[in-house]
């Protein structure tokens, strides 16, 4: 214990020093910049002293909570399931919202179809048409589905449902196809290559550094669209009175 107390004391003293120094600088030179900027006394810049709070997580606890699955297969539990088995589970546990074939009832998510729609006016973003990684399906169903009864499917059931979703999206064609932790990472989704990291700072560079026009910027202005045409606003009100 004595070894961990000292750093805390030191950190505390450093913090006091900063607190004391800051107002002093501000008061002596309120407006002008000091000729020599005061050296930064930032405890954050120094290695942070350990506080000794929290306790070690036990392996059983980590195992119970670590349910994430990555594209490289990290986190996949041992198990297997076929398209046929997945069909049964899906019809019992998923179809009431997502539809028998993943077509989506009412406003619930569509899970299949939409191939080739991403450039259209109404893109349909499904597992087959849009999602880049199969691990996302497993990870998401495992943690969040069935909606309202999350984390209730066994690993075998998760593999089976994932296999059925591949079948619904024509990514596997065989009803007897079995997905498992062994062959999982060999399955690739069609749209995987269509994602790239944020590049706004280069592709949208024109939005930076402009000096916008302030006067006589355009000769005329026309209204080209009105929200009222659609009339989808909740609690729309009539025109107000003006005094």
């Amino acid at each position: 214990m004595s070894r961990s107390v000292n750093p805390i004391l030191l950190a505390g003293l450093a913090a006091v020093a900063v607190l004391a120094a800051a107002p002093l600088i501000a008061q002596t030179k309120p407006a002008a910049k000091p000729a020599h900027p005061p050296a930064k006394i930032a405890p954050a810049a120094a290695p942070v002293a350990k506080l000794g709070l929290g306790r070690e997580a036990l392996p059983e606890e980590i195992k119970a909570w670590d349910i994430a699955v990555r594209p490289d297969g990290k986190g996949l539990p041992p198990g297997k399931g076929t398209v046929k088995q997945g069909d049964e589970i899906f019809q019992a546990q998923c179809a009431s919202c997502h539809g028998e074939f993943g077509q989506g009832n009412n406003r619930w998510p569509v899970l299949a179809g939409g191939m080739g729609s991403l450039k259209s006016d109404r893109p349909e973003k499904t597992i087959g048409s849009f999602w880049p990684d199969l691990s996302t399906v497993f990870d998401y169903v495992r943690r969040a589905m069935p909606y309202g009864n999350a984390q209730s499917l066994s690993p075998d059931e998760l593999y089976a449902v994932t296999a059925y979703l591949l079948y619904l999206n024509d990514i596997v064609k065989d009803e007897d196809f079995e997905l498992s932790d062994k062959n999982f990472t060999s399955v690739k989704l069609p749209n995987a290559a269509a994602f790239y990291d944020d590049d706004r700072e280069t592709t949208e560079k024109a939005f930076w550094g402009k000096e916008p026009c302030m006067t006589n910027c355009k000769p005329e202005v026309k209204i080209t669209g009105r929200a009222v045409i659609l009339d989808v606003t909740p609690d729309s009100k009539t025109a107000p009175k003006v005094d």
Partner: protein
Amino acid sequence: MTSPAKPDALSRRRFLGGAAIAGAGLAGAGSARAEAGKPDPLITEVQDWSRYLGEGVDKRPYGTPSRFEKHVMRRDVSWLTASPESSVNFTPLHELDGIITPSGLCFERHHGGIADIEPASHRLMIHGLVDKPLVFTMEDLKRMPRQNRIYFLECAANSGMEWRGAQLNGCQFTHGMVHNVMYTGVPLKLLLAEAGVKTNAKWLLLEGADSSGMNRSLPLEKALDDVLIAFAMNGEALRPEQGYPLRAVIPGWEGNLWVKWLRRIEVGDQPWQAREETSKYTDLLADGRSRRFTFFMDAKSVVTNPSPQAPLKQKGRNVLSGLAWSGRGTIKRVDVTLDGGKNWQHARIDGPVLDKSLTRFYVDFDWTGQDLLIQSRAMDSTGYVQPTKDELRKVRGTNSIYHNNGIQTWHVKANGETENVEIG
């Protein structure tokens, strides 16, 4: 409290006062309106609230707004989502002023309903590429050095319904997926230091304890910069719908990353490609490809008054008011036009101008009753100038859903009615 009370004398005076008004009759009890040239009965007659005793101190052990403010509330757009547990509602920006959003009006976005967690039953685990995996209780976290910071939180889908054109009449609906509060929390870098991050670590997974197990990948660099693990907002415990008892605060970055009911932080060497960073919260562009990890919320502004839910009511002097913010820094300048962009003026910024915080601006103006086409344009400390919606569509198409920070236009008509429009 400063002078000794005289209970007997006070209560007798109050009793007599009450009896007197009862005898005086009911004439003019609050309902009459002032007419031109005639004395205002609200002034010439003693009103109930001036005569009778009000409610005592213990009537509202936890205070709520006046009964006359019942219309000031979060609202949803029922056709947007399939179920209220995985849905969103909107901050009534047009009813607010200053920069701080009252906790009870901060928009909500849940993916599996509001988790109901007793603080004593909450745990935060940090594991993965660390020297020592750790479990923290809420009590542990409250023994660590904490910070207070004011930040905006904007959903990446804010204004997402407007990509194809003006759709919703009200800044609550077009821009209300943003709020701004003061958070109190522990810098994440302190928690990571406790566990000891290994040198090959690059990404974190943040995960919620709610029934959606909300999970997002976060670059370690951001975590070591300014991320807070917060337990309080606006000076009190987080509201349940904002992640009670513990949430992530990821300043300037899209709201979906700010995992609520935070229970687990895994340290890894690559992103997890969770559903919320692949299927959702990626920006589909016109060429069919998609940007991902579009974390920053670019500079944006909106005029909150007048707006469709807050029309102009008086000719003559009026106050135009609005909000500006940037996930990349501070707001440097806001320009406002009343004529659809022919001419602009600098808005008057009032109140604190803080890093990654809402900033309040005003234009005090005279309205003669002519049609107005009102826009605001924000500029931030990185030199970014808020683009028009058409400029955004030109580079992104209309399928992005997320990150619509285009300039909003309100059309004020001669009768004061205000409408969401687009102009060319």
